[in-house]
C-alpha cells in the first residue's frame, strides 16, 4: 500500500503549474487581441464633434443657437481608450485528505465428532482457521486555482501623440 508521503508526492503539481501558466498565457493573448480589436474599432469609428455653440440672446429676450460646423474625429482621438487587462496573480491550492485503515480478522472453527460402534470406535476433530486482513484507503483531493486580473494602462505607443507646430509669425509688438 502506498504511503501517505507517496500519495503527496504523486500530486502532479509541476503539471498543474505548467497548465495554469499556459492557460494564463492563452487567456492573456485572447484579452490582448480583444483590446486591440477594440482599439481598431475606436480608431475606425468617427463621430461629428461640435466645437462651438453660440447662444444669442436678442434684445427682445428671444434665444437662438448656432453651432460651428462639426469636425469628424475618431473615438480614439476623443479619448476613448481600450482597456487592457493583465493577470496580476495566480495561486494553486491543493488539499488532500488521506485515510488509511487496516483490520485483521481470524476465524477458528473447531468441530469434533466421535462414533462408537460394535467393537470399534472412531473420533475426529476438525479445525478450520482462516485469517483475513483488510486494507482500506480513501484519498480525496481538491485543487483550486485563483487568478486575479487587473486593468492596466494601454501600451505607451498605442495612442498617437498630438504635437502642434505653430509656424505663424509672432505678432509685432
Amino acid at each position, binding site marked *: 500500500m502506498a504511503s501517505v508521503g507517496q500519495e503527496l508526492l504523486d500530486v502532479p503539481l509541476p503539471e498543474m503549474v505548467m497548465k495554469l501558466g499556459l492557460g494564463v498565457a492563452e487567456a492573456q493573448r485572447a484579452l490582448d487581441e480583444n483590446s486591440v480589436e*477594440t482599439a481598431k474599432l475606436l480608431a475606425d469609428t468617427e463621430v461629428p464633434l461640435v466645437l462651438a455653440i453660440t447662444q444669442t440672446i436678442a434684445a427682445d429676450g428671444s434665444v437662438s443657437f448656432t453651432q460651428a460646423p462639426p469636425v469628424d474625429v475618431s473615438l480614439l482621438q476623443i479619448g476613448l481608450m481600450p482597456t487592457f487587462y493583465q493577470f496580476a496573480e495566480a495561486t494553486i491550492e491543493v488539499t488532500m485528505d488521506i485515510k488509511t485503515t487496516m483490520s485483521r480478522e481470524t476465524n477458528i472453527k473447531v468441530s469434533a465428532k466421535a462414533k462408537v460402534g460394535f467393537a470399534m470406535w472412531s473420533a475426529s476433530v476438525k479445525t478450520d482457521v482462516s485469517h483475513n486482513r483488510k486494507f482500506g484507503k480513501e484519498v480525496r483531493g481538491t485543487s483550486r486555482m485563483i487568478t486575479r486580473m487587473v486593468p492596466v494602462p494601454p501600451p505607451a505607443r498605442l495612442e498617437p501623440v498630438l504635437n502642434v507646430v505653430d509656424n505663424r509669425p509672432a505678432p509685432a509688438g
Partner: protein
Amino acid sequence: MRASPGGPAGIYGKFGATVEFQDGPPGLFLVVSANGDPSALVVVHGGQVALRLNGSGAVVVARMTLTQALSLQRERGIRMVGGIHMNLGRYQALLASLGAVGINQE
C-alpha cells in the same frame, strides 16, 4: 451555465471544473452587434446603454461589470465586447488643439 444578470458572481462549468468570476465594479464596454441594435441584450444581461455610436445602432457603449460583459459576449448576435475607458486628459488636449476654449460671454 450562464451568470445571472446583475448577480454578485458568475459560475460556469468549464474544463471539467467550476469556474467562478467575482464581480468588480462596473465599467464601460464597447458592444458591437452582428446585426441590429444590441441594447436589448445589454439590458437583459444587467447592463445600461450609455451611448449609441453610429446611425445603424449596431455599436453602443454600455456600462456593465466584467461578468456581465463576458456573459453578453456569448450571445450569438454579439460580434464583440471590449472594455474601454475615457481618458479625460486626452479629450481636453484634443479640444484645446481644435480651438475649443470653453464658455465665452460677451
